[in-house]
């Protein structure tokens, strides 16, 4: 697999130069004009283009407002200096690039919010110029394998920080009476939460997850999934030379290397993504899927007020799921309109009936027992 080094900081240029002069690999240039975290100056980018030419990809991962699209003109000198490829996240930026620089090869930065094959197929259809898709860590690798039918080069992140919050607003330095063009610190919500790296720069304020992504011990799985390029960032790595040496040799002691990174590490969601697993706890009331009504109010042993969608008759057996989850069944007796008038049946709406023991406000009302057609206490709510 070909390494693609994300280069955000100029001090890493000499470190990577040594590696790139002897090994295959590409450079993703974090230019401060177009990249969220990039700090490379115009001079840095021009020098790297001069040295590495077509091995360079310019990163334009920022989302742009209307005037931000004018930055497309800033690429002219870079193109004259040998820029051949750009990777962008904003479809508006990609369209601008197609119009202004039809000769450029394009790549899509799909790190966030793109994790189904149909969506990626549409990206490809909309931008036939795309040569590569850079995926995010939300993709489990076994699902990445299904993307081979798209017939496009895939890149998967293998090492580096994970950007989890990106705001265009400068939120920190104003409180410190500081005005640095780049400011980095740590924030921590409380003792239960880990400290996160916070960065404020020309693109706003950004948070990095406390764990760095580390999948260098999963390269075989990435290959099996059809990934041709691995994304690597040396940002914040304490011993980059040691890491580069290990990458060069491919069969390093990954466990020891992981411990030496200077950060705790994570595999992201490369194994599986179950970030919807807790949803059923967020809203147990979603079980009312097939409920015909709700108990609004009760007076123990005297009355209950129900609101139902369908017709209810005196003596009809109804089933109640009380807020504690238990199921009860009981006939409706002493049916009355809410105005107090006794009736044989109501056509839905609010009405009164004799209270059923244990039924309380918030109980769900069903016309049928909790069989296969009606969600029972242990059924999995629709997600």
């Amino acid at each position, binding site marked *: 697999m070909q390494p693609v080094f994300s280069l955000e900081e100029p001090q890493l240029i000499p470190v990577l130069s040594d590696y790139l002069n002897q090994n295959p690999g590409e450079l993703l240039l974090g230019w401060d004009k177009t990249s969220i975290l990039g700090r490379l100056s115009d001079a840095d980018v021009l020098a790297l283009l001069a040295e590495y030419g077509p091995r360079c990809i310019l990163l334009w991962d920022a*989302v742009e*407002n*209307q005037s*931000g699209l004018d930055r497309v003109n800033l690429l002219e000198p870079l193109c004259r200096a040998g820029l051949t490829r750009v990777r962008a996240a*904003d*479809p*508006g*930026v990609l*369209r601008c690039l197609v119009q202004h620089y039809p000769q450029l090869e394009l790549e899509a930065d799909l790190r*966030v*919010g*793109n*994790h*189904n094959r*149909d*969506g*990626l197929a*549409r990206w490809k259809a*909309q931008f036939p110029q795309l040569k590569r898709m850079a995926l995010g860590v939300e993709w489990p690798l076994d*699902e990445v394998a299904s993307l081979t039918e798209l017939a496009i080069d895939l890149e998967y992140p293998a090492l580096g920080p*994970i950007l*989890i*919050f*990106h*705001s*265009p*607003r400068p*939120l*920190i330095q*104003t*409180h*410190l009476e500081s005005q640095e063009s780049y400011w980095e610190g*740590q*924030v921590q*919500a409380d003792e239960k*939460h880990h400290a996160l790296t916070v960065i404020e720069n020309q693109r706003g304020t950004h948070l990095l*997850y406390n*764990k760095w992504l580390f999948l260098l011990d999963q390269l075989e799985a990435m290959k099996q999934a059809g990934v041709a390029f691995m994304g690597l960032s040396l940002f914040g790595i304490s011993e980059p030379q040691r890491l580069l040496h290990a990458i060069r040799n491919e069969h390093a002691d990954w466990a020891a290397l992981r411990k030496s990174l200077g950060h705790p590490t*994570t595999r992201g969601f490369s194994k599986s*993504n*179950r*970030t*919807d697993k*807790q*949803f059923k706890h*967020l*809203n147990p*009331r*979603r079980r009312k*899927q097939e*409920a015909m009504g709700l108990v*609004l*109010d009760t007076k123990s042993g*005297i*009355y209950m007020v129900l609101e139902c*969608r369908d017709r209810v008759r005196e003596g009809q057996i109804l089933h109640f799921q009380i807020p504690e989850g238990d199921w009860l069944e009981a006939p409706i007796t002493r049916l009355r309109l*809410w105005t*107090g008038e006794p009736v044989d049946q109501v056509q839905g709406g*609010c009405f009164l009936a004799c209270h059923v023991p244990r039924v309380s*406000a918030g109980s769900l009302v069903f016309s049928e027992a909790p069989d296969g057609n009606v969600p029972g206490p242990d059924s999995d709510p629709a997600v």
Partner: protein
Amino acid sequence: MASSTLIQKPEVLAPAGNLHKLQVAVRYGADAVYMAGPQFGLRQGADNLTHTELEQAVRFCHSHGAKAYVVLNGFLFQKELQALPDFVQFLSELRVDAVIASDLGVVSTVLEHSSIPVHISTQASVFNAQHTAFWAEMGAKRVILARETSISDAAKIKEISGLEVELFVHGSMCMAFSGRCTISNFTAGRDSNRGGCEHSCRLPYQLNDSADAHTYFSSKDLNGLSLVPELVGHGIDSLKIEGRMKSALYVASTVLAYQSACKSALANGTFEDPHFLLDGFSHRPYTAKPLLGLLDADTAHFQEQGREPTRFALAGHVLEQAGDRVLCQAKVALHADSRVEALGFAGDIIPLDWDGVTDVLGRPVQKVQPNQMFTVRQSQLQALMVLRLSDATRV
């Protein structure tokens, strides 16, 4: 600004967290509402609507001249997409007026399986005209622009792309670009872009070694009411109110305020300030800066600033009406000295006459408990009116 002869009233689009709130929004004058079904939305904590309720909701909207939009704005995995065509078919049969989506796979599926118009969610972070053109080529009818978009940029985007544009004008705001924030995914294992946002941005954070913690990443609430003349003048098609998790009092008050402001702006170009409606419920300090393109630290809400004092709390709802008698449900404890009033559908205030209050057995009562049903003899009250309680008389 556009010529006055071309100016049209923008749609006031209200949140509908459940069927009741939807009906409240429509009765208080919303031109359109947005709601979620049991799947594919972004508010797993909201009640949301069952299939049967969706059917009732669309029927209710259309019978009152309002439009019904259904959100499908989660970012889905391939296996989740498989269930989507059936749901889209169902929505198509209901004749919903649009779906709101952000995922390319979802948009493709909707367009392939139906002719339902597609509005692109703010989750897609559409921030420029070229991005809008991308969605136009896909077949979208409208874009709900990124919450960071200014009114003037929105007007340019509309002019260049030809698509309808919708802007958030009121409610809670993300501080990060919507759809690009994954704090919850990593720190809580809950996918914020599929409905599990944990609102970690609202927490106070200690900076470096400071002992003090501040809510650096928590946004003030958006309030674009004073900018309605600009929104109208720039031809913004839809003014969106955030808040499917918020109360019926919030829904009723915001819809009344924005409709009133739109009509006022259109009628004579002047602006009658219905701000009193927007201070009638709990909220963070307001800001209008994002709509002016001012994205600075002042848009953050420091917790020590507190929430704005509220003048009212939700007291209850009018559920049904029979002659001059109405059935109500209290949401908080009320007593004979409580100053309870109904918010009329035209914004008029109707004080509750406690002398006519009885329990459902017809017995006069001096107090009612939270969730208790009670009846009142008062002919001005109508079903779906919201009852509010002056905070000064709260039990």
